[in-house]
């Protein structure tokens, strides 16, 4: 039997004004287990807390009930008080007689009556409380960053800077991501490569950082502080540690005609290739679908010209197993396919391109060496039409496109238009827009400069149809402000395609048990207050995998994610919430119902040996809750058909005791 102490707070007149606090204290005295009951003006004050401490010592209390304000306010306070007096902090229950009683009822009689009932419920519950100890688990002091774009790079650098080892997993042969493909960056127009490649070199040279390029995460197990991850390092048929990146093999490879992914297929690369000059790691990779040696066993030229002897046609995929304390998702984005938007004739004409293709066309390292040309005939375009919001801001029921604003298109289109007019003043540049959205530091000023200084023609309206005819693109569009339909003979049409999360994100989210929204963006733990954490403990979000973002925003989020990771890795041990599910193994029938409802993957099934009454042993399959992963929602307790699963701190018996106390 517990020895319960009851402490009724007046909260000045907040409670005492509508609740007869003496009567409450008096009434609760006769409840089972109660050995001490008192009231005081401010229980949360130092003096009030001393009363509690003293009573615990004097009356050998094993549990206390504080009738006061909401537990959301002072539960933590009174738990600390109890702990200071040598009591387990989870032997404290709060009866909320302020927010849910004195403040909502006006009549003293009703208020007092209800306060007594709430007090009784709390006493009934505390009688069934058991001391709880939060679980502890060690922390593996190593972080995994999935994705090697600017988000992943920044996160890795910041974590490494704090002294923790970091691994980057990147599925492409090089890190750098989308930013490496860009030409200039808004709103300052500094060249993307000039600011990104030094960071890539920093990553390569940082002793704390390992890069697994051309690799993918295969399997994730474990939990916060203790993830077990399997990484598949795809065979690149080149020994990474030996290859010097000299490029002799690339030059000699006879299989030259393969679409170059880095230039979005606008030119070709050989079967053995280095994506771009500043690639990190600067190591060649053989495309097994293009290499004649790998397909037919004939050729072997690259092996012969490689002075270092780095070519290895027998290389196999390799699985690397590693332990991590924290995982950062930085899987980024892609422009959506323009397949469904052929009113803009993207599939019919080479001169209708996406904005990312435009970046490559204007990039000095791109397929045209930075000269703005029409992809079809290499001529200089004199009239260029930019179309905004292609596939963004669509109705949820629409058959194509995304519901959200892709956020970055207004600014990069202003940038493209401005740079075109700057370099080629003889070019007419039209931008068709629905709204120009430029909330960002120096963003609107940038857009205004495009209009006022560079003479870009911004038209409020949309393009409805692009008809390739001869060497022209006939653009039919609306100009809503002058209430006209425009017909423009353009040489180049650039589509600001909506962006979407990378396709690898969805299977990864499943592996991580991290949640996603309907657009496959990762969900944050709280949209305002925990924007870089996933609801799954130990999984953090960096960059566009969480939502469309420009570079400055990505970098700041990457830093924020890193600081959260550092905060986690700096701990030697993690203390959990002790109010978690636990299964009575003797009652568990191994049905897996709980495992299926658990949103965190905290429940696994294990085969366990049980001693039977006849002294034989029997192996049974029973549920096992991982205390470090369980968040204590209790979904499993209701799903369990045999009543084996229960929630500590909110046990079935405790809640029923409360129900009984209320329904008397």
């Amino acid at each position, binding site marked *: 039997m517990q020895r319960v102490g009851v402490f009724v707070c007046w909260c000045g007149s907040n409670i005492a004004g509508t609740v007869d606090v003496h009567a409450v204290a008096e009434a609760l005295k006769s409840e089972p287990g109660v050995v001490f009951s008192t009231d005081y003006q401010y229980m949360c004050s130092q003096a009030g807390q001393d009363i509690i401490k003293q009573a615990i010592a004097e009356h050998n209390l094993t549990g206390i009930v504080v009738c006061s304000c909401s537990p959301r306010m002072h539960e933590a306070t009174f738990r600390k008080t109890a702990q200071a007096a040598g009591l387990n902090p989870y032997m404290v229950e709060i009866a909320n007689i302020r927010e849910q009683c004195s403040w909502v009822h006006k009549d003293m009689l009703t208020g007092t009556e209800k306060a007594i009932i709430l007090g009784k419920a709390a006493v009934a519950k505390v009688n069934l409380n058991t001391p709880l100890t939060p679980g502890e688990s060690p922390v593996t002091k190593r972080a995994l960053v999935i994705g090697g774009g600017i988000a992943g790079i920044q996160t890795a650098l910041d974590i490494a800077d704090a002294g923790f080892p970091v691994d980057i997993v990147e599925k492409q042969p090089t890190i750098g991501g989308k930013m490496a493909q860009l030409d200039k960056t808004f709103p300052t127009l500094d060249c993307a490569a000039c600011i990104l490649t030094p960071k890539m070199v920093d990553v390569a040279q940082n002793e704390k950082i390992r890069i697994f390029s051309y690799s993918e995460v295969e399997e994730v197990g474990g939990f916060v502080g203790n993830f077990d991850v399997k990484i598949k390092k795809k065979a690149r048929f080149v020994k990474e540690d030996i290859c010097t990146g000299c490029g002799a093999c690339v030059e000699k490879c006879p299989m030259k005609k393969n679409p170059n992914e880095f230039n979005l297929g606008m030119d070709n690369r050989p079967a053995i290739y280095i994506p771009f000059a500043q690639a990190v790691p600067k190591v060649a990779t053989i495309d097994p679908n293009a290499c004649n040696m790998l397909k037919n066993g004939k050729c072997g030229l690259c092996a012969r010209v490689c002075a270092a002897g780095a070519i290895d046609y027998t290389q196999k995929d390799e699985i690397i197993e590693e332990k991590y304390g924290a995982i950062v998702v930085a899987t980024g984005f892609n422009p959506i396919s323009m*397949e*469904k*938007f*052929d*009113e803009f*004739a993207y*599939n*019919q004409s080479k001169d209708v391109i996406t904005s990312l293709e435009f970046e490559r066309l204007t990039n000095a390292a791109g397929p045209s060496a930075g000269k703005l040309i029409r992809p079809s005939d290499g001529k200089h375009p004199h009239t260029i039409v930019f179309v905004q919001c292609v596939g963004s801001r669509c109705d949820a029921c629409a*058959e194509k496109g995304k519901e959200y604003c892709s956020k970055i298109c207004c600014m990069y289109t202003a940038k493209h238009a401005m740079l075109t007019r700057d370099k080629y003043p003889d070019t007419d540049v039209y931008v068709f827009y629905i709204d120009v959205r430029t909330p960002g530091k120096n963003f609107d000023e940038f857009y205004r400069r495009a209009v006022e200084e560079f003479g870009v023609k911004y038209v409020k309206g949309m393009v409805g*149809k*692009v*008809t*390739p*005819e*001869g060497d022209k693109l006939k653009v039919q569009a609306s100009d809503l402000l002058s209430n006209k339909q425009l017909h423009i003979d353009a040489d180049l049409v650039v589509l600001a395609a909506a962006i979407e999360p990378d396709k690898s994100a969805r299977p990864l989210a499943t592996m991580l048990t991290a949640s996603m929204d309907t657009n496959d963006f990762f969900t944050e733990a709280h949209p305002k207050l925990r924007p870089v954490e996933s609801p799954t403990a130990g999984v953090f979000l960096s960059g566009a995998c969480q939502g469309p973002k420009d570079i400055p925003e990505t970098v700041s989020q990457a830093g924020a994610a890193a600081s959260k990771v550092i905060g986690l890795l700096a701990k030697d041990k993690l203390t959990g919430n002790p109010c978690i599910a636990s299964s009575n193994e003797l009652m568990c029938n191994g049905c897996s119902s709980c495992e299926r409802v658990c949103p965190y993957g905290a429940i696994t099934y294990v085969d366990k040996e049980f001693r039977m009454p006849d002294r034989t042993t029997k192996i049974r399959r029973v549920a096992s809750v991982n205390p470090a992963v369980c968040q204590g929602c209790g979904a499993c307790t209701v799903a369990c058909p045999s009543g084996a699963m229960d929630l500590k701190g909110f046990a079935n018996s405790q809640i029923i005791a409360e129900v009984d106390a209320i329904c008397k």
Partner: protein
Amino acid sequence: MKVSYFPGCTLKNKARDLDEYARKSAERLGITLEEIPDWQCCGGVFTTAKGEIATKLSSVRALKYAAEKEQPLVSVCSACHNVIKQTNYAMKTDSDFAKKVNNYMAEETPYNGETQVHHYLEMLRDLVGFDALKEKVVNALSGKKIAAYYGCLLLRPNSVMQMDDPENPKVMENFIKAIGADPVVYAMRNECCGGYISLESPEFAKSKSNAVIENAKAQGAEMIITACPLCKYNLIKNGADIPVVYFTEVLAEALGVKEDTNE
């Protein structure tokens, strides 16, 4: 294989050859078009306004007939197909509309959009298969550069018609490939020829038709094929200087049944 067939008014008059080539070709491909007895005109245009019941009853009757025979319903005129398909969709998805129609029809069993509605081209693609069609071709139209003209009715509204990608359709192009010719892809193939307006504003219709013809020619077309009598009328009337024919005509030609028809 037998299917229910809804020819429509124009195919009994000005577009007789569209009908006849369709029947002969289907027969050669092993499909019998069973004309629905006592079919009534579809009305030529689907009224999208809610509460329009009477104008859709003829389509529902044809659909119900096919349902009772457990056959898919095939039509070849773009307009008939559009009206029947949209009516069927409304019967399937708009329970209020279906209830009113069924009350009006007062038949023993109600109809709720069970019939599969195919355009002849869909029949070629999905029931016959373009590969099977290719095998039956005896006069391949090799080297002929043919531009497919879809117009509006075959493809839109896409949520209902579900025939092909409305902005980048391929069914007619694949059909052209199957009969051995070379498809010409041009952007105006899914734009309006001026259709209904040609009665009142012939000049306006002309400008629309011309844009289609010019675009097809600019992309190298030597011939335009279509499934719609009104499109054909408009294109020819407005000065097409390359042949504009029904797709069933080139089909019949490729299958070697064109001459039988004329006899």
